[in-house]
């Protein structure tokens, strides 16, 4: 009798532990293994990067389910740029669609400033995400399958005092993430 009770208790505990484990959120995100480096461009103009693929864990991917992470590169801005705190870089994140129009789903803004004494994009923040409607399941939906085709386009501000408008390759180092 005692053995039966013990067995029952153990079974209940095992079931409870199993249930708890399955209820835990899945490991955070998928992200591209490759880091991408931006193309050379001219300040004041939009530059479009190449499309990259990323697999999501979800079969319907909304605007808030993917984005871009930025990293500070090991090269600085060119010597020809004046060190002004009013310079920004605008970055739009877009999901490419071959049948329907591409979906611009996030906008990031990088702010130039001095970080540890060096002039560089000091911070990036997401300033806009495509809103998602509670009533319209298509609003904010960027892909109705798990395969994402993502690209960014970016523009570095022209500021007073710049000697040239050349923006070298690699000024943005980034990778994509998704759930």
């Amino acid at each position, binding site marked *: 009798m005692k053995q039966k009770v013990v067995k029952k208790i153990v079974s209940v505990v095992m079931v409870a532990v199993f249930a708890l484990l399955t209820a835990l959120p899945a490991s955070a995100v998928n992200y591209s293994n490759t*880091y991408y480096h931006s193309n050379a461009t001219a300040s004041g103009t939009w530059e479009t990067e190449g499309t990259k693929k990323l697999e999501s864990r979800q079969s319907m991917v909304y605007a*808030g389910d993917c984005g871009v992470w930025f990293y500070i590169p090991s090269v600085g801005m060119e*010597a020809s740029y004046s060190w002004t705190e009013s310079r920004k870089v605008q970055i739009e994140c877009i999901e490419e669609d071959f049948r329907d129009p591409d979906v611009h789903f996030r906008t990031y803004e990088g702010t130039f400033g*001095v970080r540890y004494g060096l002039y560089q994009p000091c911070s990036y923040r997401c300033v806009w995400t495509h809103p998602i409607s509670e009533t319209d399941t298509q609003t904010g939906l960027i892909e109705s399958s798990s395969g994402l085709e993502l690209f960014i386009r970016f523009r570095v501000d022209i500021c007073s*005092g710049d000697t040239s408008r050349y923006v070298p390759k690699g000024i943005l180092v980034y990778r994509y993430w998704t759930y």
Partner: protein
Amino acid sequence: MLRGSTFCFDFLLCKGFYDQKEGRVTVKKSVAFFILTVAVLLLFSCCGSKEQEPLNVAFFRKIARETQEDGWVYTFKYEDFKDENADDSHLIKYAFFGINLRYRYDEDYIQKVVRNDSSKPIIEVIYPTLLIRGGASEKESEEIEYINSVLLDSKKSVEELLAMNPDDYEFETLDKNILFRLMRQALTGEPQKEGSDIQYWNLPSYAMLVEPDYSKGYKFQIAFLNGTGCVDELYIDVLYKTGDRYADYVQLSDLVANNSATEEQREAFERIQAIEKDIKEQENFTAYASEYKKGKIGEIDFKRLYKFLKDIHQNDFLRYIQDPYTEILEDGDDRL
């Protein structure tokens, strides 16, 4: 030019474009004229002036630098517009920073970045590929930021900065004497010489670059500072692979410093230092390349170094930017 055009006509005769029977140039007349035109253009381009248009640099920079044996290079920079009437309200005039041109990784310089643009904040640990003073600890970060945002506020005049008394300041992580020494040197000195080549103005103001892959067990690493379109500081080193992790290598400079380098390695290092000196003196990454570009000392192939330097010279260095090494922290990680 006259000699050139006569030569071209003789050439045409020899190649049979001129039909002697017909007594005139035949159907290949257009080709002949094309060749003649190209030859004339080439002649003029050889004799023409190679001078570039003068650059119109709106600002000047006064820069003082100090290099230490361990690779740290400290810089004080003062920048302002040449036109006194220009709006400098957003200009960041003063800066003090330290960059290590010799070492790319240090376990003390790990960053933790919180990614907030997803519904669940994600923490990413980043091992940067460039060591910058301020990145080692919170204290170091506080002090370098204090220096740059408070002490060196752009609203202050040069005279105010020169009047500052070093005795009034103490820092735990930075040597204040370096700051004040460089500040005085820069603010009382002349504006830095401006480079004459726009190509070099378009190079980064700082860079830490490395060959993307090991070949024959080593790769070259090149780091430089460029304030006004010139090569101000340069450090070239060789990284010997010792394992597969991102920081598994030893540097030639360390082998030489520790007396554990072979005779060939020592010779190669001396050669590299001579190349650095020539590049800085000539302000050209391909200076005197013909003297070393085909050479090899032991395993060190200077043809690879030349290719690397030439790519920087031509502003084609994307493939030498090293990707950062990062890890996403999972629940339960000690570093959280």
